[in-house]
């Protein structure tokens, strides 16, 4: 079953690259995305399955990353129908194939039990997303793609170095080493401290680049600001979560080596820097796609900040992983609709969405409330759990206070930017638009899911999060 999950998108990508009509390619992607989702749900209650001598297996943390990813792919597969129909004519051959390969590589990343394999999977995902970013073939998209590639490659190279350092740290007297996560966290391998520390810094910086943590975030507004919004949403909701998985694994290893304090202080620091940068750039932002990119920087900051506060913080972060994916699904898809309706991504160019396109307007408002963590959306719960962990576990009150302060500034910035887009009179006097279902239903579904998660966390999910958080907490 796990093998099917991994190989299905790869085969489908091969088919998409062959000579088939574009419509068939899209339908193929939809079929694969839903099959993937069904398989992922099917794996939920199964005992862990191992492939390739234990290189590949889905543990609790992996499943928690995989599930929302699969759901996001399915939603965006539906959405792309309406989006591509309204976009300019262009062959979808490379685009669909790259989407499928992205899905394959991210699935592999979620299921890797080996730090080296994880790196390979994540690097592959970076490379296959380049053609996705460049889909519209504009000069600006090209610039964004180039920046994404070069910054992402350098970052991922640092992660590779970190992986190597980790292996060096794990070398025992006979010269043997391992990069299997279960070995590194079993407590049987002695890890040399200086190498471990350096490895953690490098892994954090490397995967942090892919996540978009400040100060490695600068590619993000460029890339998300120029990519087709559904692609940006996909990357912001899935690839970043997978990169976070890398940081999570590194933290897990550190925690089991008795270096929780070291890891925590770095995580908290980078989390706060990311929140600060996001706050600075969200206030006064003039472009709504870049705004969403900075909102993603914020969410990543919250993720690592939470990870720095023990089991409870990790619990909050894991819940946040799911919420983040759903959230990106809502906001970027709404942004896609606005971009196609108004033809601009300038905030000043969009007004009265509630009047002109009531459904998209309502989704935008819901997405805004979900993103700034207003209940009853799920983000409120995860951000609050993290705050609670920060206050309970922190030696000083500063991190919690700064966290609250930055979130408040971001709240202000987001509201000031997005509310005028939804409210007010539309700049063009037209009757309310009836939008195609394929561009409305997926974000609505994500919004409902985010809403449900804010008032009801299903028992299996809660149990899974708890066991995953314990796994991370250092025993």
């Amino acid at each position, binding site marked *: 079953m796990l093998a099917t999950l991994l190989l299905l998108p790869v085969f489908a990508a091969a088919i998409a690259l062959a000579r088939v009509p574009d419509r068939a390619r899209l339908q193929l992607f939809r079929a694969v995305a839903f099959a993937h989702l069904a398989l992922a749900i099917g794996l939920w209650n199964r005992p862990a399955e191992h492939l390739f001598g234990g290189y590949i297996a889905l543990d609790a943390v992996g499943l928690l990353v995989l599930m929302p990813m699969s759901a996001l792919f399915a939603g965006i597969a539906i959405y792309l129908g309406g989006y591509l129909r309204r976009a300019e004519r262009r062959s979808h051959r490379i685009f669909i194939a790259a989407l499928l390969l992205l899905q394959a590589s991210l699935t592999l990343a979620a299921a890797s039990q080996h730090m080296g394999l994880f790196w390979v999977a994540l690097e592959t995902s970076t490379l296959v997303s380049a053609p996705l970013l460049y889909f519209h073939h504009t000069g600006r998209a090209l610039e964004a793609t180039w*920046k994404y590639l*070069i*910054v992402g490659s*350098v*970052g991922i190279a*640092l992660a590779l170095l970190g992986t190597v350092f980790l292996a060096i740290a794990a070398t025992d007297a006979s010269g043997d080493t391992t990069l299997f996560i279960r070995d590194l966290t079993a407590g049987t391998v002695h890890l040399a*401290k*200086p190498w471990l*520390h350096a490895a*953690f*810094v490098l892994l954090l*910086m490397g995967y942090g680049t892919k996540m978009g943590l400040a*100060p*490695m975030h*600068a*590619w993000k507004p*460029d890339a998300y600001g120029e990519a087709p919004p559904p692609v940006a949403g996909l990357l912001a909701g899935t690839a970043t979560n997978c990169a976070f998985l890398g940081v999570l694994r590194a933290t897990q290893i550190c925690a089991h080596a008795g270096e929780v304090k*070291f890891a925590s202080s*770095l995580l908290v620091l980078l989390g706060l820097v990311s929140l600060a940068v996001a706050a*600075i*750039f969200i*206030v*006064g932002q003039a472009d709504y796609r870049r705004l969403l990119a900075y909102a993603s920087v914020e969410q990543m900051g919250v993720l690592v900040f939470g990870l720095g506060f023990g089991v409870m913080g990790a*619990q909050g972060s894991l819940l946040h992983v799911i919420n983040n994916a759903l959230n990106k699904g809502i906001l970027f898809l709404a942004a896609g609709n606005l971009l196609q309706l108004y033809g601009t991504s300038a905030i000043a160019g969009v007004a*009265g969405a*509630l*009047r002109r396109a009531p459904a998209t307007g309502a989704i935008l408002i819901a997405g805004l409330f979900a993103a*700034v963590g*207003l*209940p*009853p959306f799920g983000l*409120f*719960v995860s951000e*609050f*759990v993290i*705050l*609670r962990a920060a*206050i*309970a576990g922190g030696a000083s*009150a500063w991190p*919690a*206070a700064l966290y*609250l*302060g930055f*979130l*408040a500034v971001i*709240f*202000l910035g987001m*509201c000031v930017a997005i*509310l005028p887009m939804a*409210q*007010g*009179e539309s700049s063009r006097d037209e009757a309310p638009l009836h939008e195609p279902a394929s561009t409305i239903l997926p974000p609505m579904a994500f919004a409902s899911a985010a809403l449900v998660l804010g*008032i*009801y*966390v*299903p*028992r299996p999910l*809660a149990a899974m999060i*708890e066991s995953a958080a314990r796994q991370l907490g250092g025993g």
Partner: protein
Amino acid sequence: MHVALVAVAGLAAGAALPLILWRWDRLAVVAGATVGAISCAAGLTSAIRAASGGAAAEWLGPWSLPIGALRLGLDPLSAVFLCCLFAVGLASSIYGAGYMLAFAAKRRVGWTAAALNALLASIALVFLARDGVLFLFAWEGMTVSAFLLIAFEHEHRDVREGALWYLVFSHFGVACLFAYFSLMGSAIGTFQIPGAATSFPPTVAPALLVLAFAGFGTKMGLAPFHAWLPAAHPVAPSHVSALLSGVMLKCGAYGLLRTLLVVRGVPAAWGWTLFACGAASAVLGAINILAATDLKRSLAYSSIENVGIIAVSLGAGVVGLAAGSPGVAALGLAGALLHVLSHSAFKSLLFSAAGAVLHGAHTRRLERMGGLLKRMPATAAIFLCGAAAAAAVPGLAGFASEFVVYRGLFDALGRLTPAGQAASAAALGALALAGGLAAAGLARAFGMAFSGSPRSEQAANAREQNAAMLLPMAMLVGACLALGMLPRIALALVAPALAQFGIHWSLLTPVVAQAGHAGQLGSIFLLVCLALAALRDRLLRPRPVAQSVTWGCGYAAPTARMQYSAASFASPALNVLRGALEVRMSGGVPQAVFPAAVHRESSATDRVDAFLYRGGTAWVSRRLASLRRLHRSRVQQYLLYMFIALVLLLSWAARLVRQ
């Protein structure tokens, strides 16, 4: 307890129903309002029983989130506030249906009934929650649903701005409350809100009190956190304004009182802070009642004034408790609770009446009203009753509660330390000043809106509103009269809540009895006056009445716009109080011997708002903009930052190893 739970469940269902009936817009409004009104009526009976009965009950429901619990409780304190909520909620549900149906031809209105019920349900949950997380859920639910309602007419710029200010300030407040409940939760190990006074570590307790003051003070609209209130309340649909002013502000007072119950050993300094901010709010609010040229804005400032009175009284109560002076504590807390009740009644009445005026005359600006007395007599009578109650005319709600507040302060004059006495004296002076200004301001509002002749065509064509809007206002008039004539009823309602603070009601009976007597005497006097006026009217009826234009000093073409205006009315007082206001004049000045037509307008905002918030946000955004310039779009720069971060983090890690 169970009836209250059923009421909340009913409100929740009432929030879902209009969305189910999405297709039938008008039906959705009516159905939502009906369910809401019935739930509120049921809740009101339960709340009154719980408030006067004095028993406390708890209920634990199913909950699946990793933190918090669905723990609800009903004690007398909650019940007092629930009385306000359900009473005002009942009136605004009915009123809201009438109010909103007027918009149904132009836009979708069904969802507003859903949002209103959601707002009512979440406020009820705020009062019922016995768990910090649940409390925050309800609190934010209240913020969101209120925001949606405030932004109802979002095509107007001032509506958008008001709604945004509201949201931003609410978030500042709730950020404090996040910290408050997290801190409390980590100190006692659970998010359950303790039922009894709890000792917190000496580092935690002051932080809790500061956070409670900022968080709840913002919701109350206490100066200096009040700037959102005059922006948001005027622009909301009027039944929502009524609910916001009448009930939602009281959530802040509720939170402060709950904190007083939960935290053991609240120091007198906390009380003095409330005291000072309350006095400042009262004066600031009162000045602006007189200065505002927008009817609803004027009423919003009146809310700030009244919230100030509540805070002063509450502060006196806290000081009394801390100083071990039960008399001061009793009068202070009782004054606060009683004024909560009466302000709920008269302010929701005033906002509802203002809504009727708005619907009739299609403007909120006093300078464009006038002559509505003849066109909307019922509304005029109702507004007059509300304004009289707000100005503390004997026999009406405001008088009885303010009587207790003043008595408390006089009591404090006699019993506290010299510094405390001086403060009480100052507060008495401030309240007296505020009371005078507020009375003048309300008189001005009534005079400009209802007497004279219409200043605009819309005002001339105003019509009386329908029964759905008049009936709930009549109910509120009844409440104002009952609270004013029979303050013993109100005392019976709040006595068990006061007992929770260790205050026996017998300390209060004499004062309340005096208030009652004064009210009754006053009202007898008023009735006699009214009877005399009626008699005169009757006697003069046979005589012919001739109508002619007012003598215009010989000017040949007098118009309605030459009447004494709202700004002229306020001008003498405002000239004295110029320091507190920022008066801006816009438009041209008539010049030359035969001047061309010019438009000239004056507007006043209070300085705290103008300087602290609007100035402050502008300053912060300039600073942030200069920080943003650090970001150039060169990819080399992106990588350089990474490089620097790498070197810094590695060297930091190396230093950690060496330690």
